[in-house]
């Protein structure tokens, strides 16, 4: 399982550690050519405005191309802002492949950053965890570290909300893209969000389908 991590700026090291903990190999991605032959891609946390300046047109085009073709992706915090359809506070450009609108720094400044010990998991979230065989009788607790996090202000019709904080969507899935406004890569133990991502990657490999049953091929 070769997982690329967009490593222009941000907490790409923390993601690389999480990837090795789920048995994958992390590949740093800074150029378009480094996006080939990957089983999945991570868009890490960091400063989205700085990442945008470092994303050259060829890399943007290649990222959009692999994501639209269905490469499994995990976007966290700034990564979600990069993928969103529309970004506010302030308005800024984005890749537009994820049908949501976001407001940057939605909770305020660093002094307003917080940890939610256990997110509210929606019915769609339960179904996704069930398919990935992560339920074990009941839903696992998802701890969420929010650091200068964005708030999602609109969710498109093809986007499933998997978990909420204060009735606001914070964990979403659109096709093979998993998006968290928090930082599963900073969880103390391996986050269920990472296990869900691992499942998406394995399903895409043709090992298992998205309903969790083995495919005969």
């Amino acid at each position, binding site marked *: 399982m070769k997982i690329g991590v967009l490593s222009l700026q*941000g907490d790409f090291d923390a993601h690389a550690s999480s990837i090795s903990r789920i048995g994958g190999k992390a590949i740093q991605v800074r150029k378009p050519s480094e996006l080939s032959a990957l089983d999945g891609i991570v868009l890490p946390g960091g400063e989205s405005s700085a990442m945008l300046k470092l994303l050259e047109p060829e890399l943007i085009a290649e990222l959009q191309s692999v994501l639209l073709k269905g490469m499994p992706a995990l976007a966290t915090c700034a990564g979600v802002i990069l993928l969103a359809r529309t970004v506010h506070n302030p308005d800024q450009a984005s890749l537009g492949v994820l049908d949501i609108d976001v407001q940057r720094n939605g909770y305020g400044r*660093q002094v307003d950053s917080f*940890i939610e010990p256990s997110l509210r998991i929606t019915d769609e979230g339960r179904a996704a965890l069930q398919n990935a065989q992560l339920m074990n009788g009941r839903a696992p607790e998802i701890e969420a570290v929010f*650091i200068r996090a964005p708030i999602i202000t609109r969710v498109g019709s093809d986007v499933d909300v998997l978990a909420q904080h204060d009735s606001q969507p914070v964990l979403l899935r659109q096709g093979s893209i998993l998006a968290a406004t928090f*930082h599963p890569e900073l969880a103390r133990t391996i986050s269920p969000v990472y296990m869900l991502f691992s499942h998406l990657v394995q399903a895409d490999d043709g090992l298992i389908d998205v309903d969790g049953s083995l495919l005969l091929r």
Partner: protein
Amino acid sequence: MSQDHLPRLKVGLAEMLKGGVIMDVVNAEQASIAEESGAVAVMALERVPADIRKSGGVARMASIDIIENIMKAVSIPVMAKVRIGHFAEAQVLEQLGVDFIDESEVLTPADEHYHVNKFDFKVPFVCGARNLGEALRRVSEGAAMIRTKGEAGSGNIVEAVRHMRSLTSELRALTTRTDEELVTVAKELGASLELVKLVAKEGKLPVPNFAAGGVATPADAALMMQLGAESVFVGSGIFKSEDPAARARAIVRSVTHYRDPAVVLEVSRGLAEAMPGLEMSQIAPEQRLQERGW
């Protein structure tokens, strides 16, 4: 919020700033140029270190109006400096809502014996260090990020290189020590045995380690990254150069692609003059900012 969450939130923000450039700015206009050039954060100051060095006198926390204007101008994190040991300046900055505090040797120290107890604050702190002992003592006081001291405002990278090399070679040596040796090493470093054992096991600091002090060119930034820095602070190096916006963009790209000389070459082409530099022998020992703190 439970107290054990705080260290994770503080170090978490430091993690987000990795692979980036933090730029010193003295007004909202410079802050916007820094953000537009791809800075991950700005450091709000009244004067950049090169000017502090020239004008002498007591250097204090920047005026609140300057910091507030900078906070309004940009969406990236805003840092500000307090004098070593001046916990009341830090309380004011936390109240104002700055995102990171630098307890900095660039300002005139307020306390000759004690640094700020950084565990008392919700806002994260960064502190300077010249070697492993200094770094671990700052971590023991609650620092969420360490940076080399270098020699601020000199435009000379030699001291930052010395400090980064000391830190990394001491870290490497620590990993080879036996348990009974670590007891003596902890005493020599002036840090707790528990922390020293943890660092010996991991082979790295428990908080991100950035470079600062004397970075003036894209190659300076690439040098510090290859020596083990995880991000770079640029003080006087940008706004004391001839074309700050172009130099800022070049240093940002150089930090991201620090292992790729082709990119560092490309961004170094056509840059206007760098800031003037000072040879270390031109700076009298009592004027060296790095000697402040312990």
